[in-house]
């Protein structure tokens, strides 16, 4: 049993989990587990997580337009769950122009857009569309104009790193576009710190910072505003995300920003995420 006072302290941090995945994937989590809306809500309630930004696995593993629609249908009016859509930045694929896409985001209360550009063949270096301005430029320009957060995952093999130049280029080309990286950066602290110092529009999801006290180390270098709590549930345990922030050697204000306020601020849910 989790002590009531612990749960209350967790609730006070008002966690917003940046990455919760709904739907049945081709390869489920260990033990055959996958997550439907009810599973996510139950686990969030049990652990005092206030909100989660979801995406539907079929948006990633099948077809974005299909999965994005399905997510809207499945979530309905569930206020704890927020919506993110997966984008392949191409009119043919999305069935609409960039400006029409932005209208759809607003109509459906979509809080962020996700990119999974990596190709199945070699996720570290190869993408399934050209990850360059001449390909993604029209969509990124539209997203930047509305400051829609773009959550970017290359999902390289666990000991590999994403191609830094691709991230650097995107952040340079669209300096007002908030870009949240969700890959695992265990082996890449030095590169990541330097990149984030150079590009203030880059943010990082916490569970990508797996080294001992990597989160605290990076907060010390860059400030707490650049870090966003996210679990990748149901693959990873929500408790891992919570404890990494809750037990961190950081102030309460810093923890609250990372737990949820930074994300809410980027998504326009609250104004002024605040900083110390």
């Amino acid at each position, binding site marked *: 049993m989790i002590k009531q006072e612990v749960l209350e*302290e967790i609730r006070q941090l008002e966690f917003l989990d940046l990455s919760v995945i709904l739907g049945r994937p081709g390869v489920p989590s260990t033990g055959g587990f996958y997550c439907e809306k009810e599973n996510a809500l139950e686990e969030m309630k049990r652990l005092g997580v206030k909100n989660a930004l979801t995406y539907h696995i079929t948006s990633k593993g099948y077809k974005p337009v299909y999965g994005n629609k399905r997510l809207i249908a499945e979530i309905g009016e569930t206020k704890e769950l927020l919506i993110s859509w997966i984008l392949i930045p191409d009119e043919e694929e999305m069935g609409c122009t960039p400006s029409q896409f932005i209208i759809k985001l607003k109509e459906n209360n979509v809080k962020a857009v996700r990119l999974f550009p990596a190709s199945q063949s070699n996720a570290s270096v190869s993408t399934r569309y050209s990850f360059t301005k001449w390909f993604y430029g029209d969509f990124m320009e539209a997203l930047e104009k509305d400051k829609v957060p773009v959550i970017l995952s290359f999902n390289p093999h666990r000991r590999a790193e994403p191609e830094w130049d691709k991230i650097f280029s995107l952040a340079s080309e669209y300096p007002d576009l908030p870009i949240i990286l969700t890959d695992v950066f265990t082996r890449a602290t030095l590169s990541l710190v330097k990149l984030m110092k150079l590009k203030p529009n880059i943010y990082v999801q916490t569970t990508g910072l797996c080294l*001992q006290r990597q989160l605290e180390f990076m907060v010390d270098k860059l400030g707490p505003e650049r870090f966003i709590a996210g679990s990748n549930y149901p693959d990873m345990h929500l408790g891992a995300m919570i404890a990494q922030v809750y037990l961190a050697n950081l102030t309460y204000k810093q923890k609250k920003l990372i737990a949820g306020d930074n994300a809410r601020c980027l998504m326009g849910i609250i104004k002024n995420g605040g900083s110390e």
Partner: protein
Amino acid sequence: MLSTMGYRIIDSHAHIGPYFNFFIPFNNAKDMLKTMDLSGIEATVISSNAAISSDVIMGNKYTLETVKTYPGRFLGHFMFNPNYAEEMKRYVPEYFKNDGIIGFKIHPELSGDYPMPGKGYRYMWEYSNKHRIPVLFHTYFGGDRLEVIEAVAKDYPDSPMLIGHGGSDLGIEKTVDLVNKYPNLYYDMCSPCNKKYGAIKLVAKECNPDKVLFGTDTPWNDPDLSVGAILLSEVEDSIKRKWFSENFFRLYKRASKMLVP
């Protein structure tokens, strides 16, 4: 605080010091002690990164010095590098005169993909088998298969063996089956399996609760992730206590000289 939820936590799989392949913040003993305090970890069993990936003699010395400097907080695994088997033989009896050195660590991957049944490991297995000293071995996708691990477990039935990282790359279900089958095999609940939602549920449901030990791989991993995922899981309290420390004291009998079980 979460860290004082009443569990006694011993981290049976950790390292210390810098690593050549990437930057690790706060990797020295003093900083790691602070981490342990923040995460609610009473004691940590280390093998230095130098020992597993560089000069094993220097690295084991680093481990021993840390153990001696912080008795009761750090305990040590003697890293056995099979590429230096003859030198290792000279050091093993000497190191195990120290109460703070409580087991062997082997890392076949960082020892050049050295196979566990290979000649270079033979002395260690025999020593472990004779003195019932636990061996924690690393596993990974390219290393020895479960069939090989099974054969080693049969060859040295009195050698307690911890399957590192819960055999995550070998198939957690199959690894659990093997642990349940052989009395001398134990499940190392160390990253990544102790952060994964499904893996925690699976191990709690399927694995003999007396054969699972908690580890974090600190400083390669943030212990808060591992501690938090298990603390905040729905696993029964009695099982959490076994994973976190009770099984450790049963397996690592030498540790009782340094810590009160």
